[in-house]
């Protein structure tokens, strides 16, 4: 599905400046849920921007379904951390979701169908005529997810999407995301700095170490569907958590 090899990104004109991303390689399989775990300032955002084609990489390659990524690919949708800034306050919820579709060549009727379906999937049916600022933070982030879903992407890139909502809302959004991921059969690449969140959501967790390369990889064998209480009580959950904590810290991993 997605193959990243030897990605390197240096900001500015000076090629010898310290790179933000250096020697990053990994692959994501079709319909896989991969979490990328990294501390703040380790180049997560730069990496995502390179993957999505928003920022050109200095060297290396990103290949999506066999095609190299040079600009934002059609098959990809993006959910940002700051929902209040990626939703447009001058458009209603419904317009926010529908308007990227028009430029994808979707006709008006189909766009309305996709919008309704996506709103329904995130549990916001009937709120389409509100404005984003009339909704709570968690609801706004659900609108952002609905926009991504309505876009019908093969792969969904998420940049710490739940970092700025409170804990209660956050677990609700996590379950919602797992639900739509399975229903829509999409591939998800989810960036977070939260170990618990990564383990809870992912099939596989990649630990990023500065300057953004994969320092450790953990396969999460926890059964699905996952449950906020039961899953987090499993011994395997605790073990993975310890492993990832150590990996983040840069200590050798005790298997």
């Amino acid at each position, binding site marked *: 599905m997605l193959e990243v090899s030897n990605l390197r990104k240096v900001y500015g004109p000076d090629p010898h400046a310290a790179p933000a991303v250096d020697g990053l390689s990994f692959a994501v399989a079709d319909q896989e849920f991969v979490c990328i775990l990294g501390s703040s300032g380790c180049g997560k955002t730069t990496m995502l*921007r390179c993957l*999505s084609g*928003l920022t050109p990489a200095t060297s290396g390659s990103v290949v999506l379904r066999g095609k190299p990524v040079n*600009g*934002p690919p*059609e098959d*990809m*949708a*993006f959910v*940002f951390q*700051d929902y209040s*800034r*990626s939703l*447009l*306050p*001058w458009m209603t919820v419904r317009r926010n979701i529908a*308007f*990227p579709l028009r*430029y*994808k060549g979707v006709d008006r009727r189909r766009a309305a169908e996709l919008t309704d379906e996506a709103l329904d999937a995130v549990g916001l049916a009937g709120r389409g005529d509100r*404005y*984003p*600022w*009339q909704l709570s933070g968690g609801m706004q982030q659900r609108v952002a997810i609905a926009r991504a879903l309505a*876009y019908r992407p093969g792969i969904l890139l998420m940049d710490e999407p739940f970092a700025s909502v409170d804990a209660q809302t956050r677990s609700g959004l996590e379950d919602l995301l797992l639900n739509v991921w399975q229903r829509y059969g999409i591939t998800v690449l989810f960036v977070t700095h939260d170990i618990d969140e990564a383990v809870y959501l992912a099939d596989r967790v990649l630990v990023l170490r500065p300057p953004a390369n994969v320092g450790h990889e953990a396969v999460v064998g926890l059964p699905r569907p996952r449950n906020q209480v039961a899953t987090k009580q499993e011994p395997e959950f605790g073990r993975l958590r310890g492993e990832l904590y150590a990996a983040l810290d840069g200590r050798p991993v005790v298997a």
Partner: protein
Amino acid sequence: MSRRVLGFLLELALPAALLIGYGLWAHRAGSFYFPPLDEIFRYFRELWLFDRVGSDLLPSLARMLAGYAASVVIGVGLGLLLGMYRPLRVAAEPVVEFLRALPAPALIPFSLLMFGAGNASKVFVIVLGAVWPILLNTIDGVRGVDPQALDMARAHRIPPGARIVRIILPGAGPRVFAGMRTSLAIAIILMVVSEMVASSNGLGYFVLEQQRSFAIPEMWTGIILLGVLGFVLNWIFLRVERRVLRWHRGARGLLAEHEPAAGAPSSLKKTPTPEKSDA
């Protein structure tokens, strides 16, 4: 209920006192320059209902609106261009700063040479004065558009034209309107000034002409009409702005269920820097 009535009366007390005070004083003083109110009103009715509406008021309004509309189109268009391309903005900065600081009435002689004494020269002067606040505010508004909204648009492959219309322009909207509000006042002022120089009709011409022939009450009617005109146009503008920028006040949490009637007017709610005012 009675509190609101009381507040309303309080607000009207000072203007009423001023008017009555002037009326009494003018009657007693019999000043040549400050005629009594009833005399002014009698002339007002004679002149402006509706004898000179077609000959002076409408031409003035037409010039003002034409100049204002041109200023909005040019200011927003140029502002988008300069806001989006940094090299262009930097290169244009000294020229823009100079022209903005140049008092527009000083350009009236130039405009007269270029266009003659017709409407074109007046509209030109209005544009030369009113375009700057719109231009500068649009530039700032465009630069202030959230980069994440632009990323979102790019990630969803929204074409550049649609990005301008759907994201950059609405995002800059509050600033564009701030500029347009300042420019409206400037456009009215320049309408009057340009009509005071080399003109044969219009409100500015009328007021100055009455003064020169010592028709004092007539002059006063013109001044009052101009005041009413400024007030009404400003009021209409605020209505439109309120409607168009509803989302903005909502997003900033200023949209109460009922608008406070007696609080500070919206024009007071300005931060000191963001508005580039100019006249």
